[in-house]
């Protein structure tokens, strides 16, 4: 792993902006003519997503419509970004660590902002958990645990989507050369689609969980 300040990747930027544009466009098309009496299929799907995430958020943290919108946006973006790799000639931006790391840093920043907003400097008291001499001894471990959250978030998403895409590429390129290659490709395609949804959900739910923990009184 290197840290490169000069090498801006325009291809990655293109993939990111394709994902963003697709997400925005699809969400806009699904909701632009939303109506209360007869919701269409798109509106119903979006309402289901909102209701589902709202239900999760209600049990995890204080009511915050802006953060709920952020979670929905994050889930939709990751869903589109993950599935983008399944379109021929395109790659998923989440197969690049810079994108997943940026999102993880965003989550980490939100965790701190929400925790600090709720508890002030008392937020950092959880570093001394469970208190006393043991708490003092646990201080480095608790700090490492805090900072490991964005790392695990970034690497989990990056690794899962990247592996899915690599295998898809391998199977696609070799399918014609061995018996059952297309069937295996189809099965792997289905599995990758499942992983894409699950990973988008995991990233979103962990973001909610970390922010909720930061706001929780016992944290």
């Amino acid at each position, binding site marked *: 792993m290197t840290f490169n300040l000069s090498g801006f*990747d325009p291809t990655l930027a293109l993939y990111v902006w394709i994902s*963003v544009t697709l997400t925005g466009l699809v969400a806009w098309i699904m909701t632009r003519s939303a109506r209360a009496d007869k919701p269409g299929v798109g509106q119903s799907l979006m309402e289901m997503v909102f209701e589902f995430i709202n239900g999760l958020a209600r049990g995890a943290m204080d009511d915050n419509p802006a953060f709920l919108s952020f979670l929905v946006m994050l889930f939709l973006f990751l869903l589109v970004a993950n599935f983008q790799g399944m379109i021929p000639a395109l790659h998923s931006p989440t197969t690049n*660590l810079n*994108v997943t790391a940026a999102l993880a840093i965003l989550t980490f920043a939100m965790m701190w902002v929400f925790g600090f907003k709720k508890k002030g400097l008392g937020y950092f008291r959880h570093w001394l958990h469970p208190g006393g001499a043991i708490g003092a001894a646990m201080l480095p471990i608790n700090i490492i645990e805090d900072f490991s959250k964005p790392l695990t978030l970034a690497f989990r998403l990056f690794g899962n989507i990247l592996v899915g895409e690599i295998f898809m590429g391998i199977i696609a390129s070799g399918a014609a050369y061995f018996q059952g290659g297309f069937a295996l490709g189809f099965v792997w395609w289905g599995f990758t689609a499942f992983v894409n949804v699950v990973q988008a959900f995991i990233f979103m739910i962990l973001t909610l969980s970390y922010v909720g923990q930061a706001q929780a009184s016992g944290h």
Partner: protein
Amino acid sequence: MHINIALNPLDMLDALVAVGILYVFLQKYAFPPLLKAVRDRQTRIDEELAAAERRRQEADELKSQLEAELRHVKARAEVAMNHALRDAEDEAAQIVVRARQESRRLVADAEAEIASERQHALASVKREVADLALGIAAKVLGQERADEATRRLVQEFVDQLGPEADGEPTP
């Protein structure tokens, strides 16, 4: 496929800016109509629930009102029925009294008529007896007709016959 795990702040910044813009776009154009539709639906549901609750209360009030009216009507009907029953009983008693009076009157009239007929028959019998006695007396005396003195004598005798002599039953 090129696997790059080099961290590049510019790439990360680009991703953050893109996501930020997506968030602003969705917050401005995609989510508001959806949330408004959900709010409107919730408002409509709340209104319909409130209306249903109002209608239920009105129905309850109407039911109580109707029950009270029914109770009142029942009470009035009972009073009217009791009144009618009393009237009917009074009327029946009056009819019985009138019938008794009528029957008594009819019996009295019949008795009076019988007595009158009896008197009339008695008088007729007395006349017949007197005539018969006079005829017998005239035969005995060898006269065609009894004279006036004999006639008066016989008539006085017959008139003096009392109830005992008339065959009136002794009470």
